[in-house]
């Protein structure tokens, strides 16, 4: 008996369909990938984190308008990326500039002539051109939603240089949804409330929450992330000082002194506040005379 090819095809399709309906519910439990709503995690799995680092580096390359060391120029003593340093308020000193001159003097005539076509000047994006780093940060966040720096750096540039606090807040809240325990994102959110929305109550609440999250870490991680504690407490102290809550301000400065690399400077601020407090208490006493 000779079977018709159409019948065989129909049989194969029926078997495929039956198998698919049987296997599909089980297949979803085999891997966590399919549960993710992120297309990149479905496509690349954990390998996407490598791309995330590359995209974050691309943001730094764009920030330097292409003046960036290749793997052959790296000296092995590189600190944090400059977009990260800038988001923490660090600006380049003349020593930093010398350190970042990775090209050095031309080694031969080929190197010398080749530099006429390359970018050899160290600059940073400014005047609103900082927006050009945003696509790479967006991609880095999509590739690795657990990379916290992406959200804090993106938010800093959006609120500080591009006047986009709403977009910055949305980006930070997205970061918070993906990293519930991140005190870094909460700290940046507090800065946004304080500096952009001028909402000290909101900033205070978020920074205190950030501090609680920082405390939740084990002691080894706390030692590693002392700078974050310093930043949060100093900002809280400044906030309370501006609000006239001098005792709270002193309390926060004293907390910051325990981890600060420069406790002397903080002591000066405490002394100034104490002087103001003394002046205030003396002033009403002197008034009746």
């Amino acid at each position, binding site marked *: 008996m000779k079977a018709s090819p159409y019948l065989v095809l129909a049989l194969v399709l029926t078997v495929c369909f039956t198998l698919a309906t049987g296997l599909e519910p089980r297949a979803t439990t085999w891997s966590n990938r399919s549960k993710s709503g992120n297309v990149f995690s479905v496509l690349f799995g954990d390998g996407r984190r490598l791309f995330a680092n590359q995209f974050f580096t691309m943001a730094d390359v*764009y920030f330097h*308008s*292409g003046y960036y060391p*290749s793997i*052959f*120029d790296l000296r092995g003593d590189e600190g944090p990326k400059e977009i990260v340093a800038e988001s923490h308020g660090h600006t380049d000193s003349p020593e930093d500039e010398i350190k970042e001159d990775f090209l050095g003097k031309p*080694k*031969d005539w*080929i*190197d010398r*002539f*080749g530099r*006429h*076509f*390359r*970018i050899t000047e160290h600059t940073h994006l400014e005047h*609103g051109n900082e*927006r*050009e780093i*945003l*696509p*790479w940060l*967006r991609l880095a966040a999509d590739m690795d939603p657990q990379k916290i720096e992406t959200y804090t750096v993106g938010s800093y540039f*959006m609120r500080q240089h*591009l006047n*986009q606090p709403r*977009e910055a807040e949305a*980006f930070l809240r997205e970061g918070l949804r993906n990293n519930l325990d991140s005190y870094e994102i909460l700290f940046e959110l507090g800065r946004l409330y304080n500096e952009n929305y001028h909402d000290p109550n909101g900033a205070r609440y978020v920074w205190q929450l950030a501090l609680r999250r920082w405390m939740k870490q084990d002691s080894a991680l706390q030692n590693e992330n002392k700078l974050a504690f310093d930043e949060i407490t100093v900002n809280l102290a400044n906030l309370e000082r501006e609000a006239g809550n001098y005792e709270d301000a002193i309390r926060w400065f004293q907390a910051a002194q325990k981890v600060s690399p420069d406790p002397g400077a903080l002591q000066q601020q405490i002394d100034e506040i104490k002087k103001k407090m003394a002046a205030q208490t003396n002033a009403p006493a002197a008034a009746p005379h």
Partner: protein
Amino acid sequence: MNTIWALAGVVIKELYRRKDFYVLFVLTAIITIAAGMVNFFHDPKIVRYVKDICMLLIWVSALVVALITTARQIPAERESRTIFPLLAKPVTRWQFILGKFLGCWLATGIALLIFYIFFAIITGSREQHWPWLMYFQAAWLQWAMLAVVIALSLCGSIISAAPSSTTTICFIAVAGILLVGGHLNTVALHQTQPLQTIFYTIYFLIPHLEWFDLRDRVVYDWGLVDWLDCVLATLYAAAYTGLFLLLTWIGFRRKSLNT
């Protein structure tokens, strides 16, 4: 000279008869337009990533067009045996090589022109300014670099009979020079002898194609390169092109034409 132009004309006609260029151009256009349509943080002024992607695609596409077009020229003529009536015209072997080179170079130049016009339209529509001189410099230097690549590929097609192997080897060599060529001196510094000498020898022997890559200057708006440097780089490319064409002629002069 008429003979050389006639041979070149045939190669140019081949470019628009074959589908390679159209496929690459459509792919470049689709990827660039798709990338340009993505909205990042509701900011329509972001443009550099589109320029970056488009320039990268132009570089890869132009390289592929140049290599594929060139690598098949001589093997195809030999395989179809059209090389015999051609050389009996009389067309000398030197004219044959020059005609093929000129045809491939001009064909690649036409492809490059179309790519750059597309690039200018896409980026200009977002940035609202057209730095034509910058585009001209970038396109010119890229075209000069492609002259070296085409001459190298023509030379390779004399050695290897299969166009696919010539294309692959040349592509790897060119990509290697573009990515690592300029850093070989730095790498050599960290090597012991005799590796150091070997690296330095390679560094001074290879054509430094990375000079001709002005993508970063275009993407980051760094302005023009000094025109004198452009002229010197063009002469440098011409010297290497001449060298590879001479090597091709030496190899082809003694080559048996029977497959």
